[in-house]
Structures are given as structure tokens and as C-alpha cells.
């Protein structure tokens, strides 16, 4: 019995492969298998080639494998592209209306659908119906899930699925595992939910892949939450400036974008630093420079995000590597942004954003709305009071006999413009005190995670979406795996501890210039070398294993 297996479903854009992949994932999830779904799609609306790899494992996973056990092909193109990755004993399930005769199981999915009076997109139901039969899965599981997912449309889809089910035969009896099924979330959904749990009230965003689905998700669920405003302003410059206005008015606000949009926001980021306005910015990376490759992945904005913005100012940067971390760290970013009145950036990439992960509900309890330091409404209000820890108590416009003066210009404690040396230095020192206070707090949070063989003298260091593939390598190759999740202020002490006794360190990054290694070198950490990939695709298990075997 396989410890894990992968199913690839592919077709043209608009054929519904993603939704079908999600559904297959859910079926396997209900059998207690842990699920990860990799999405690969192109920047077009119809045609082209899209595919999903649904990987099921007995243990939690968050990385794709190249080798596939089942290939579900909606068209000839899918077959040509992926046939070579099929295992020797793997099986092809194909839409025989669109594909010439092939080894495997052909299902005339489109004819079935037409005969039963369904829409062409429903042909997917015939294919997953067949898959369920092949895997020896109880029909009732499919039926229950289909009714839950499709509501009114379930009946016709059930008929089509049934027809597919009947045409196939059971080739493998999949094991039902004694594990509770977990929620299946994309990283973007987790970012949105984590922010909501931490009290999100306003979300502003201009569409940009791969961050757009945060906007779509929040626009969709806001009616259930009743206390969230979701807006799409005219451009990213408007987004960030509106967001700072909304935060100044007292609303917990977040914005989301990718590298190009973040580049447009950078002046506003600097304003958040200077005016000490709390704001959460989600930056989901895609390959750049410039337009780059919109629907693919990269980690090439790391150094940009860490240093973006003119002038010296403070920021909090986290880099979650899966949906659970995305939820938790976005919540943390919101609370830190408000406690310290500074910008907080959630740095993810297309894989974290759009791949699907298992999500343990208990994570949700770890995030709550933490109250920032408010003005106690006594005496004259100073927006930039030089407090001991640098944090000036907050007040919002609307307070009687109080003027709340926020500013982009250097200022005194009241927020009145200054160009005097002494006051300039004092205000910069106030902001630095705040940073030092945050740095102390960071060391008490979980800023660096360690996996694999914790005694190994060889370590691989990763951030963000490379977490999953690295953890599996740690297990397989007996390596130590280190993942910093807080990048600024950098948890130096935790990192030192995590790397104690290590002789050789490698970084694994999806960028061309080893930005994580560059960044960590500034912290005095010496590297053996870096394993880099910059094809827009993440590391697949087999690829990294090969690379690591050669290097370690």
C-alpha cells in the first residue's frame, strides 16, 4: 500500500479542472488522507493548458511530486504533456470523446453528459465518478459530498457521475485512514480568515495575480461577517493611501497585491512608517522583473520587501509557508501592526496563495483581536508622545476637544511640522525605541522553526513556500531544516540556536540570486551554497532530492 500517491487532472482553461481537482481532494480528505493540491495555470481565460496535482499522503504534506499515479486527461494536450511522468503501474483515465484510443480507461465523458442533458463542463463528473470506482471508494461518500458542494446542481451531476462510475471497475481498494478529515484551504483564504480573526474591518485591493483571490474571497464572505468593507480602488497608490486613511480613522485595515503593485505602494509604505499608521500589506510574489510571469511562482521580492521605502523606518515582516502559518502569521501581523503602529508585511508567493493545504481548525483559536495601546483621554493629546517604549497611545478623529495630527513630514510630539535638529533626532529616536521593543518581543514569539533531524550538522534553510519540500527532504535525507517565519525584526537569538552545531548550511530558494542567503549573510551566517530554481515552478520532491544528494 502506497504511503502517498498523486493524481493529475489537466485540460484547457475553462474546462473546470481546478474545481474537479478540489473535489477529488475533498473525497480523499474524507477518507482520512492528508491532501495537498498544486495548481498550474496560464494567464488566459479559455484554451491553453491548466492542471492540478492532487497529492494524498498518510502524513501532512505541502509539496508536489513529479511522478503521478493517476492521470486524468480531458484533452490530448494533457496526455502528451504528462504521460511521461506517469508511474510504470500508473493509470490513465481519459475523456474518450476528445482523445484517440489510449491505454487506460476511456470514459466518453462528453457524450454521457450530453445524453443526460448536462452542460459540457459537467463532463468532469463522469471522470471523477470513474475515479471513485477505480479507487474502490464507496459511492455514498461521493454522493454526500456532491450534494454538500453542488446544492441544487447535485442531481444532474450525480447522474453523470453515476454513469462514469458504472463504466469503470475497481482496480485498487484505497485504505480508509483513521484520521479526522481537516479543512482544505488555499493560503489566500487562510490569509483572509486570519486577518478576520484578528479583527479586519477594511480590505482594499487592486486586482493582481496571485493576490486577487484574497479580494474575491473577502468580497464573497463579507455578507456573512457584516463588519467588513471590501473596496477595489483605482490603483495601488490609491489602495495604500486609502488604507492609511482608514487606519487613521480607527479601522483595522489590510491591502493585498503582488510585486508590481507593491512597487507602486512603496511611497505609501514609507508614509506608514513616518506617520506611524498601522497597516497590513500582503505581498504575494510571482516571477518578475516587471510583468514577469503572472500566474507562476518566485521568491524574488524578498530583499525588496525587506528594504522597500525611502528613509529609515520600521516594519514587521512575516513569511508563512502554508495555510496554517498564513492564518496565524497574518493575525500576528495585524496585532503587531496595531500594537507598534507600523506597517506589517505578509510575504507569500503564488504557491502559498493558490495551492490547497490541510488546515487544522485549532489554529484559529490561537489568533484573537489584541487591543492596542489607547490614549486614556487625560490631559492634552500628543499623537507622537515620546513614551518610554516609543509607542505613543492611539486616538482616532472624533475625540472631543482633541486634534489628532498625523503627518508625513518630520514633526514634534503633537504632529506639528519641524525642521529643528533636536526635534528631528528625538522623533527618530522615539521610533527606534519602538523597534527595539518589538525586537525584544520577537524573541519570545516562534520566529524560527526547526524540523527534520535536529542534531544533523547539515542544515537546509528555507522561507515561505519551500517549507513543505524541505521538511520532506529533512526526513528522507536526515537533514536539519530551518525555516525563519519572522524576517524583520530578525530573531537572531532563535536563529543562532536553530543552527547550533551545524557545519554546512544550504539555502533552497525559488529565485536567481540567493536572496535568503544574501539576507542571512548580513546576520553573520555563512553558507555552503544555495539551491536555486527560477522557472516559475516550485521545487518538486524528486528534483530537490536529486540536487541535495549531489550537494550534501
Amino acid at each position, binding site marked *: 500500500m502506497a504511503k502517498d500517491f498523486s493524481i493529475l487532472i489537466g485540460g484547457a482553461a475553462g474546462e473546470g479542472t481546478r474545481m474537479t481537482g478540489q473535489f477529488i481532494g475533498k473525497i480523499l480528505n474524507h477518507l482520512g488522507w492528508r491532501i495537498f493540491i498544486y495548481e498550474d495555470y496560464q494567464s488566459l481565460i479559455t484554451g491553453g493548458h491548466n492542471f492540478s496535482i492532487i497529492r494524498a499522503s498518510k502524513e501532512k504534506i505541502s509539496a508536489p511530486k513529479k511522478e503521478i499515479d493517476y492521470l486524468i486527461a480531458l484533452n490530448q494536450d494533457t496526455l502528451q504533456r504528462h504521460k511521461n511522468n506517469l508511474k510504470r503501474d500508473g493509470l490513465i483515465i481519459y475523456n474518450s470523446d476528445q482523445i484517440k484510443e489510449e491505454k487506460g480507461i476511456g470514459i466518453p465523458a462528453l457524450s454521457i453528459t450530453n445524453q443526460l442533458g448536462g452542460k459540457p463542463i459537467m463532463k468532469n463528473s463522469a471522470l471523477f465518478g470513474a475515479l471513485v470506482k477505480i479507487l474502490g471508494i464507496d459511492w455514498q461518500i461521493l454522493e454526500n459530498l456532491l450534494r454538500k458542494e453542488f446544492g441544487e446542481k447535485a442531481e444532474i451531476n450525480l447522474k453523470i457521475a453515476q454513469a462514469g462510475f458504472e463504466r469503470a471497475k475497481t482496480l485498487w481498494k484505497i485504505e480508509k485512514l483513521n484520521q479526522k478529515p481537516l479543512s482544505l484551504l488555499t493560503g489566500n483564504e487562510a490569509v483572509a480568515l486570519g486577518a478576520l480573526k484578528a479583527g479586519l474591518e477594511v480590505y482594499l485591493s487592486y486586482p493582481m495575480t496571485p493576490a486577487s483571490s484574497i479580494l474575491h474571497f473577502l468580497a464573497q464572505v463579507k455578507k456573512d461577517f457584516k463588519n467588513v468593507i471590501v473596496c477595489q480602488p483605482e490603483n495601488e497608490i490609491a489602495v495604500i493611501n*486609502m488604507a492609511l486613511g482608514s487606519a487613521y480613522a480607527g479601522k483595522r485595515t489590510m491591502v493585498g497585491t503582488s510585486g508590481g503593485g507593491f512597487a507602486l505602494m512603496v511611497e505609501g509604505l514609507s508614509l506608514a512608517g513616518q506617520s506611524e499608521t498601522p497597516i497590513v500589506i500582503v505581498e504575494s510574489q510571482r516571477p518578475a522583473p516587471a510583468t514577469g510571469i503572472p500566474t507562476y511562482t518566485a521568491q524574488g521580492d524578498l530583499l525588496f520587501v525587506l528594504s522597500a521605502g525611502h528613509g529609515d523606518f520600521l516594519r514587521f515582516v512575516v513569511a508563512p509557508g502554508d495555510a496554517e502559518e498564513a492564518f496565524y502569521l497574518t493575525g500576528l501581523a495585524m496585532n503587531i501592526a496595531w500594537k507598534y503602529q507600523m506597517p506589517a508585511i505578509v510575504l507569500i508567493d503564488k504557491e502559498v496563495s493558490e495551492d490547497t493545504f490541510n488546515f487544522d481548525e485549532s489554529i*484559529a483559536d490561537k489568533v484573537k483581536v489584541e487591543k492596542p495601546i489607547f490614549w486614556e483621554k487625560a490631559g492634552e493629546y500628543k499623537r507622537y508622545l515620546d513614551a518610554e517604549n516609543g509607542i505613543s497611545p492611539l486616538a482616532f*478623529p472624533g475625540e472631543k476637544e482633541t486634534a489628532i495630527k498625523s503627518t508625513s513630514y518630520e514633526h514634534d510630539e503633537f504632529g506639528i511640522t519641524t525642521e529643528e535638529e533636536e526635534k528631528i533626532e528625538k522623533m527618530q529616536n522615539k521610533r527606534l525605541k519602538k523597534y527595539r521593543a518589538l525586537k525584544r518581543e520577537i524573541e519570545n514569539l516562534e520566529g524560527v522553526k526547526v524540523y527534520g533531524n535536529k542534531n544533523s550538522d547539515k542544515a537546509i534553510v528555507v522561507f515561505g513556500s519551500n517549507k513543505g519540500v524541505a521538511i520532506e527532504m529533512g526526513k528522507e535525507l536526515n537533514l536539519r531544516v530551518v525555516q525563519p517565519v519572522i524576517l524583520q525584526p530578525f530573531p537572531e537569538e532563535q536563529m543562532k540556536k536553530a543552527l547550533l552545531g551545524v557545519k554546512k548550511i544550504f539555502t533552497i530558494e525559488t529565485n536567481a540570486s540567493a536572496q535568503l542567503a544574501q539576507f542571512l549573510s548580513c546576520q553573520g551566517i555563512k553558507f555552503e551554497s544555495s539551491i536555486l530554481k527560477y522557472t516559475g515552478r516550485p521545487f518538486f520532491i524528486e528534483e530537490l532530492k536529486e540536487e541535495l544528494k549531489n550537494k550534501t
Partner: protein
Amino acid sequence: MNELDTKTKNTWCPGCSNFGILQAIKNAILILEKKGISREKFVLTTGIGCHAKIVDYLNINTFYGLHGRAIPLAEGIKIGNPDLKVLVCAGDGDAYDEGISHLIHAAKRNIDITVLIHNNRNFALTTGQFSATSPKGFVGRSSPEGNLESAFNPLELMLASGATFVARGYAAKIEHLTNLIVQAVLHKGFSFIDILQPCLVWFNTFDVYNRRVYEIENNEISSKERTIQKILEWDYNDGEKIPIGIFYKVEKPTFDEEANKGLVKIKDFGPQIKEILDKKI
């Protein structure tokens, strides 16, 4: 001195027409307070330029923003708290050059804020370069042989963009301007006043304006056709007469109201999140 003033030393040039605008804003706030809008409800955002120093001279809530971005800043404040009366002071460089997209979209979405443009028709604080409303041939430090571009007419743009209150004032006619600001703040929706603001140092238009400016009387302010005729009387380049007053005023639903519709204060989203997570199994 009244409590609307701060103790900050004013650094505008002596005789600057910005003093007139400052006075008109203060007058308007006092009048609006009498009409029931309390002082703490006012918020003013600014861009960058001579006009922006006004935040230091007014003892009210202010957010001194970035160049060109005073309008989205104000929109965010209004979305965040629709009870506030949000005003924007921006320069022509701010609103008509650097941040013109925001001006258009704020008008388009009819968000209930008041935008006051200190239009001195040049970049004054950066020492006199041409702006979007400098006339063709304007001689400045970046155009010693004369500006090659013609000015554009911001009122025409605002009408086309969907502004529901379009007006022009003159910094030297403080009483008239005060009344315009009061009307603009009371208007439910996006209100816009282009304020002619002569710059003594780089583009002294006092004499020209004093000769040509006249107050509009009995205009049909809800008719786009009549309004456009009035707007086209002066194109910011040449022309004989310069009308000031309210050009256009209509009522439409506001963005901030619609965006905030049905919102309920909820302290903990835990149950809703659990429901979504359960659906995702």
C-alpha cells in the same frame, strides 16, 4: 486668535493668498459648528506644497499626506468613519498633475468629501515650474522659453467625471469663498472647489483676477448643458470673464454610505470562521 489657531509660526510669503483660504476655512468651520457639526468631526488632509502647511495652522484633526495623495487618504478616512466631515486641501500640482487619477475616481464614486484646490497655477514650493493649469507660454524655471502645453480646465473634467458639486472660488473674496466651503461641506456627495490662488512670487495673477472675476447669479446648477456653457467661459488660458460660484449641484447616492450599508459591529468572528472552515472539509 481663536482656538482654531495653533501656535505655529506661519511661513507663507507675506501677502500670500493662502491666508485668504485659511481664513475662509476657519470662518466656514465656525459657521458649520453653529449648524450642528462639532469641531472634532472635521478632518483635513493635505498633499505637499505651499497649501499643505495649512495643517500646522489649524487646530483640528489633520493628516499631512504625500504629494498627490491627499484625496485617497481622505477617502479612506471617510470610508473608515462616515460620521466625519472630511476636507481635502490640495494644490494644482497635487490634484491635477501627480494625483489626477484619484481626483477623477473620487468624483466618479461620489464619495462624500470636500476637495479644495489651492490653484496657484504653478509649482510654487519647488520654485515656480509649470503645472497642469499654467497657461501656454508660462515662463518658469523649467520652461524659460515658455510652457509648450495649454492649461486644462479642471471644472470641465470634474463635470465629466461625475462630481455632484462643482464650484470655483477666489482666495481674495473671502466671504464668497467661505459660503462656497459651507455649501460644499453641507452637500451630501463629492464636492469640489477650484480656488484661484494668486502666487505673489511666481505667478502674480491678482490684477488679472480682480479685473475679470465675477460672481455667478441665478445659474441653473442642476443642468449639465447650462453648466458646461458656464464652465467654458474661461479655459484657464485666455478669456475675458472668469465666473466664480457654484456651477453644478445634484444629489446622488454616496459611495461611503453604500459601502457602510448594513454593517454591524461584531467583536469576534470566531463562529463565522468556524462555519467557513467546516464547509471546507
